[in-house]
């Protein structure tokens, strides 16, 4: 054995074995606490490292990273929580006012509304990735499922103009969700029947969705606005099909109830995964398909069901976006959209738990919003640069979330001590 081999053995040993001895001999409660703390510290460390490396990129290219990050933070609207005073706020969907410690109409509040508008679809596409992950499937097709959901939302939202608003919204959301479930179900069926790798089939489905959408809303396409044949964009969603706005002004793209739908789905996700037979079967297949099959759980059925539910979550994200603030789609929007991949990052960072996905989505929603041209002051940092910085940070988060940063630290120290 050479020296290098020795080092590799140390590496694998520390990754797999090192944390375990410390758990033994610990009281149950404390052990659980440490486990949970580790689950929290890892993602936090990942985020810090990703932002640090992103800051280095900013520094190397001649900007002040602290100033840039401060400007981005102010653009996110998260500073709103620190601006405590004495204000009156209108109760949503009512005319009465009440005392409130925060100013609900400040600039920071408007920025926060935008952040939360972006957070909702990220939560939903993140749940789509997370649910499939629990079944041992890597659903990289959140983008395609999100897009299919948004296409159906446009189609149904622009039809039935005189329908009762409540039924219109409900019908649109339900059909869009089912469409996404069916679309992701294609990958699930292929995996379950012929064993086609879900990563390959979902990547293909992503691009099929992108090009079919470009066809649908492009010039001369079947869903393009017939009143303006020269502009490649769909018609507007009927007023009745728009989600109610509960914070901010409708004209200024206020916060719709989509964020509540997303939060409700986090709860639904938690219940399905942790408190139902379906969730148990899905997790069993995810842990070990062979063992699940041996104990009478149908692996093929769960592959399909998990993909379909995952696709439903992601498509709901598309519907919420279209009915909540987008209202129309064009080929440019479709080809530039990356919400599905941001959801992937959120699911990985949130370790596929409901709470984790929620917080990670807020982080990415804030990051995307804070770096957008609408929020960032161009005199401090060009928004075009900031948008790319956000992409770099997302990449770094996904890159670092896979490796156990704490584990590497331990390994490095041991290696130095032993040499």
């Amino acid at each position: 054995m050479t020296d290098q081999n020795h080092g590799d053995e140390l590496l694998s040993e520390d990754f797999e074995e090192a944390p375990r001895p410390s758990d033994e001999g610990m009281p149950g409660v404390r052990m659980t606490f440490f486990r949970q703390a580790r689950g929290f510290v890892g993602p936090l460390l990942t985020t810090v490292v990703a932002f640090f490396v992103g800051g280095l990129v900013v520094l190397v290219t001649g900007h002040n990273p602290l100033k840039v990050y401060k400007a981005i933070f102010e653009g996110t609207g998260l500073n709103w929580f620190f601006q405590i005073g004495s204000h009156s706020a209108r109760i949503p969907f009512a005319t009465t006012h009440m005392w409130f410690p925060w100013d609900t109409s400040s600039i920071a509040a408007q920025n926060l509304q935008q952040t939360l508008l972006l957070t909702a679809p990220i939560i939903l596409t993140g749940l789509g990735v997370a649910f499939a992950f629990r079944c041992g499937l890597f659903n990289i097709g959140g983008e395609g499922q999100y897009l299919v959901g948004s296409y159906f939302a446009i189609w149904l939202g622009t039809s039935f103009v005189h329908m009762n608003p409540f039924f219109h919204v409900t019908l649109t959301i339900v059909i869009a969700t089912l469409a996404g479930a069916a679309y992701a179900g294609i990958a699930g069926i292929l995996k379950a029947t012929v064993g086609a790798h879900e990563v390959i089939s979902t990547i293909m489905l992503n691009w099929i969705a992108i090009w079919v959408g470009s066809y649908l809303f492009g010039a001369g396409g079947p869903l393009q606005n017939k009143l303006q044949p020269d502009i490649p964009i769909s018609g507007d969603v009927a007023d009745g099909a728009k989600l109610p706005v509960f914070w901010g002004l409708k004209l200024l793209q206020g916060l719709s109830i989509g964020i509540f739908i997303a939060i409700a789905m986090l709860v639904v996700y938690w219940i399905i995964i942790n408190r139902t037979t379906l969730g148990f079967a899905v997790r069993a297949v995810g842990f070990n398909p062979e063992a699940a099959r041996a104990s009478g759980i149908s692996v093929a059925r769960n592959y399909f069901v998990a993909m379909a539910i995952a696709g439903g979550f992601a498509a709901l994200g598309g519907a919420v976006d279209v009915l909540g603030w987008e209202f129309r789609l064009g080929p440019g929007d479709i080809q530039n959209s990356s919400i599905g991949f941001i959801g992937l990052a959120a699911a990985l960072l949130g370790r596929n738990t409901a709470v984790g996905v929620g917080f990670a989505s807020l982080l990415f929603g804030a990051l995307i919003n804070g770096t957008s041209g609408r929020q960032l002051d161009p005199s401090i940092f060009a928004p075009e640069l900031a948008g790319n910085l956000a992409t770099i940070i997302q990449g770094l988060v996904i890159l670092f979330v896979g490796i156990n940063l704490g584990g590497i630290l331990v390994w490095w120290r041991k290696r130095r001590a032993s040499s």
Partner: protein
Amino acid sequence: MTAVTARLGGFQWTSPRAVGAYGIGLGVLAFWLTLPPLHTRTTALPVVVGILAIACGIFALAREERRVGGGAIAAGVLGIGLALVAVQSSVPHLNQVVVWSALFSATLVYSTPLLYAAIGGLYCERSGVVNVALEGMLLTGAYFGIWADDFSHSWVVALLVAMLAGAALATIHAVWSIHFKVDQIITGTALNFLALGITGYLFIDHYGDAGTPGNIADYGIPDIHINFIKSWPFIGPIFGQLNLMIWLSFLLLVGTWVFVFRTPFGLRLRSVGEHPRAADTVGISVYKTRYIAVISSGAIAALGGAYLSTGFVHSFNQNMTAGTGFIGLAALIFGKWRPFATWFATLLFGFSSALADRLPIAYGSEWGTLFQALPYVLTLVAVAGVIGRSIGPAAAGRPYERQ
């Protein structure tokens, strides 16, 4: 060479497999009859030819040749369908769109970046490391290629810098997936993001709103002019003036086939991808082989990106590859991880892009857009196993744990 002649000599012209192949040919013929220069205006002839194709397919299918038989039936049905569409549209329109020499030269241009990406992916995946970061590697090559070209005014330097940049990105993939044993798809996705962000950031930071300078074409990768064939009909317009990188891609293709299937190094590469434990037992270093394969995969894919920016469009834009790397990946899967089958797939996908480009001339842009989805649909059909399943290297995606 002897292997080739032996195969040709032993070919049975009436075997079910051969009949299936004739069926595929007949299906193509059914459609081709209605196109320029023949312009058959009756529906009867293509339908008869198409039915013959389907009959050949059924013959092959009944004799356990599922792949070829299914292909022949599909070709027959598609041939009849497309022929009916073609007969409906007017001769001038067809003449505008179907200019064979222009279509074929555009096919070569569009398929070249795909071929570089796919061959890069072939090395990587044959060694047992899944590479979904081909898109990012292409994009990296595209930016750093044009940046170095602008900087040095030399396309040789541009290609070298692009290869270095692609190799650097691939090195991350190698370290993460081989040493850290992270899920290779997660790393690949991360690298796609990273490449998109870094190239976009550097592009805006360095070139800003003005974009890359217009004189890149003067220092770009040169075209190869073969003057004596330029006047030849049909062949002249296609091969008379092709970019150097297109010819290089053919060399790379043949070289790859020889390397992977006819040398001991290639055998090691494949064995590491199929059964790493067995390879390790006979003394092949799995880690070293995989490192070399992944890093060279990045360098090769980056060449395709450099061709795209400095040899073809002579400019760079944020996210300019827009899925080209993924079509390359699709071609690799469609071609079942084999060099020549992959080349055929890149030509097919390049042809669909070329068609998507030319269709709007006569028929409006909306149909062209749908043709962009064709490579992905075909690959989905291929992995679904309707026409012979695509199964990759056995150990692809699984990190190797040394014992």
